[in-house]
């Protein structure tokens, strides 16, 4: 009996173990995207995932149900929807650790805390406005699509800037209570000849340290519309250039020949307006252009005068987004890149969101591609994939992505690999190459094909005077310019070390050559005879 029992026990435990093993394999989940990077020849090569999906937060998770609960202080109305709808913008206010969401489809502005729990809901602004005033005296938002929040550097007042597109206005307001905003300044369509567009629909909004307000407007191609703090139109800021295509060149030629009437009938070559922008702590404005596969001015870093400082005279070529178009065989369609939002994180990394493929491209300060993550939503509707990603925010080591179709905010957290990349790059960009060395080594342990790591290690070796090692690293990362620098030092060192040997060889060669010449001229026998005779 006992032996039978123990046999049973063994069998059951073995089965349980087998089951547990199969279960662990079944429960294993990779990231929903395939991580890749671009090599020197702009070919996509596999890489490690630098970010993993943490969680996707829907409206219900944010506690939006509180808005329709009469007993709650955040009560708006009985019908207030408890989900987001076609949300267009997300902004993180790092002074107060709050998120701001433009819930465009529901015409409301939401304030969330660091854990994405709702702490405020604003349907409009109170104050001296003529536009869309409701019975309770509140001027309602309509199709708001951009929000920016900043504390004034003068007195620390928190100002909320909202691009209220369908009301053709932008507003600057202060927070009165959890449900009320007070209007400070309204920015309307500029009434000057300079502003030649018929409409004024600000879609994104920014303010600089001097509280000048910048609005990106649809169909305004001359740049962002700039207002001073008191609402006066200042002009346009940082227009894109026209992308030079064959059609543009052809039209330029036709214009030379055509009569004035014909020219009037022609299309004008205007640049594509940029879709979105972000401002960093130093006051530089970063813009992205959403036009499919835009090459010219796809991403810019503008100084306060509106000049692109990445378009420099050094001849550097900065490229952003996908470098190859992706072909989807199942839909017989090729996806191109459409960069829709940009955010610069505290540590200086630049994150660019691609609307078409749901990818985030992360660059360092010097525009080196660090990693690519995120993916297009498939039929399986996986967490971490996107249908229409509208906005991106970076907070600490997390990336928040707002999806306007799935109506949620997805949080991506950096992996160990991503952590090492970021800490290495932070040191590398400061020029502390040797300090970055252990970090880069950790990166290489996880992704042996990460070219930037080899450049980093090469620079560390160069700083330490290990020239041949540096040459090897630069060769691996195919960094020809840095290889050249290292080669110069290596050559100098080689010459210095072997100077005597080299000189001896050269002198010996010269002597031999002279001897051979003499021998040929005089004949060998005569020469030998002179030697034997003893110098007679």
């Amino acid at each position, binding site marked *: 009996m006992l032996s039978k029992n123990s046999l049973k026990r063994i069998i059951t435990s073995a089965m349980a173990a087998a089951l547990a093993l199969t279960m662990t394999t079944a429960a294993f989940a990779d990231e929903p995207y395939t991580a890749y990077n671009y090599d020197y020849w702009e070919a996509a090569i596999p890489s490690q995932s630098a970010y993993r999906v943490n969680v996707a937060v829907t409206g219900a998770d944010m506690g939006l149900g509180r808005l329709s609960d009469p007993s709650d202080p955040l009560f708006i109305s009985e019908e207030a929807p408890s989900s987001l709808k076609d949300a267009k913008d997300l902004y993180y206010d790092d002074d107060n650790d709050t998120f701001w969401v433009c819930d465009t489809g529901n015409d409301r502005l939401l304030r969330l805390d660091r854990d994405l729990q709702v702490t405020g809901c604003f349907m409009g602004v109170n104050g001296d406005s003529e536009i869309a005033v409701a019975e309770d005296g509140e001027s309602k938002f309509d199709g708001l699509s951009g929000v920016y929040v900043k504390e004034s550097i003068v007195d620390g007042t928190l100002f909320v800037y909202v691009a209220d597109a369908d009301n053709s206005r932008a507003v600057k307001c202060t927070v009165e209570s959890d449900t009320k905003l007070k209007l400070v300044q309204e920015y309307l369509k500029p009434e000057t000849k300079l502003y030649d567009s018929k409409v004024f629909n600000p879609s994104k909004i920014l303010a600089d340290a001097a509280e000048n307000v910048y609005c990106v407007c649809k169909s305004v191609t001359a740049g962002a519309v700039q207002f001073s703090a008191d609402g006066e139109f200042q002009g346009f800021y940082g227009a894109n250039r026209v992308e030079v295509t064959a059609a543009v060149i052809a039209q330029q030629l036709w214009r030379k020949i055509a009569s004035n009437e014909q020219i009037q009938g022609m299309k004008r070559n205007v640049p594509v307006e940029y879709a979105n922008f972000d401002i960093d702590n130093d006051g530089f404005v970063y813009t992205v252009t959403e036009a499919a596969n835009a090459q010219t001015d796809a991403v810019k870093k503008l100084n306060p005068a509106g000049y692109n400082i990445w378009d420099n005279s050094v001849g550097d070529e900065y490229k952003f987004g996908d470098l190859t178009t992706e072909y989807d065989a199942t839909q017989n369609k090729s996806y191109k890149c459409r960069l829709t939002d940009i955010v610069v994180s505290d540590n200086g990394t630049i994150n660019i969101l691609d609307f078409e493929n749901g990818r985030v491209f992360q660059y360092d300060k010097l525009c080196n591609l660090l990693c690519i993550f995120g993916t297009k939503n498939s039929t399986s509707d996986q967490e971490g994939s996107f249908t229409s990603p509208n906005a991106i925010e970076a907070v600490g080591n997390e990336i928040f992505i707002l999806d306007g179709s799935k109506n949620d905010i997805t949080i991506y957290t950096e992996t160990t690999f991503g952590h090492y990349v970021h800490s290495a790059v932070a040191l590398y960009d400061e020029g502390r190459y040797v300090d970055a060395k252990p970090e880069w080594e950790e990166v290489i342990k996880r992704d042996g094909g990460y070219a930037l790591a080899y450049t980093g290690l090469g620079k560390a070796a160069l700083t330490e005077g290990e020239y041949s090692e540096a040459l090897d690293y630069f060769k691996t990362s195919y960094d020809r310019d840095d290889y*050249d620098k290292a080669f*110069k030092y290596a050559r100098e060192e080689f010459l210095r070390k072997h100077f005597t040997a080299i000189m001896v060889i050269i002198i010996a060669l010269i002597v031999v050559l002279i001897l051979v010449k003499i021998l040929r001229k005089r004949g060998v026998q005569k020469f030998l005879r002179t030697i034997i005779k003893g110098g007679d």
Partner: protein
Amino acid sequence: MYEFSPMGWLKHCVFHPVEGFEDLRWKKQGSLKIAFGIVFLLFVAMVVDRQLTGFQFNENYVKVFNIVPLLVQSVVYFFTWVIGNWAICTLLDGEGTLKRILVYSAYSLVPYIVCTFIAVIFSNVLVQEESIWITAITYLGVGWSVVLMIQAMRAAHQYSFGKTLASIVGTLIAMLLILFLAILLLSLFQQVYVFGYSIYTEIAYRIRG
């Protein structure tokens, strides 16, 4: 007049661009063996230039190494040049035989090959700031070879200078035509092959089933 070994004649031609090839023709010299050797060295120079140029100067796509384009660019182009030139100049009262054109053309390529080798050696000891030396050497090689080639063709066919230039332009056009026809022929034969193969599979299926 001159009495040289075959290699001596080669040296004489290379260093006497004005009368070298005339002397060569007058003395009925020029070795076919050496000419083929030079063509082979041209191919070697191409490979060396692609593979052994110093890393800081090498802009080639090093992920894949395919020898066929290099073979075409050296050996095939050379023989197309010879045949094209022979075809054109026979029509234009040129006195050159096929052998003579081949030998003279090959001899005039020597400076280019030598300078390519020198440039490759330089590229392994110089840095980008000093790249002017490599450029200079390369230009020297190409220029010298072009001068020699014009002189060689002039001597081979007993042309005036203007007619030589015209015949060279004609030769280049002839080369294009030859290569075009060759590619056309290749693709046609490929289609014939595909046609034959599909008939074979069709019959094979019928017989089996």
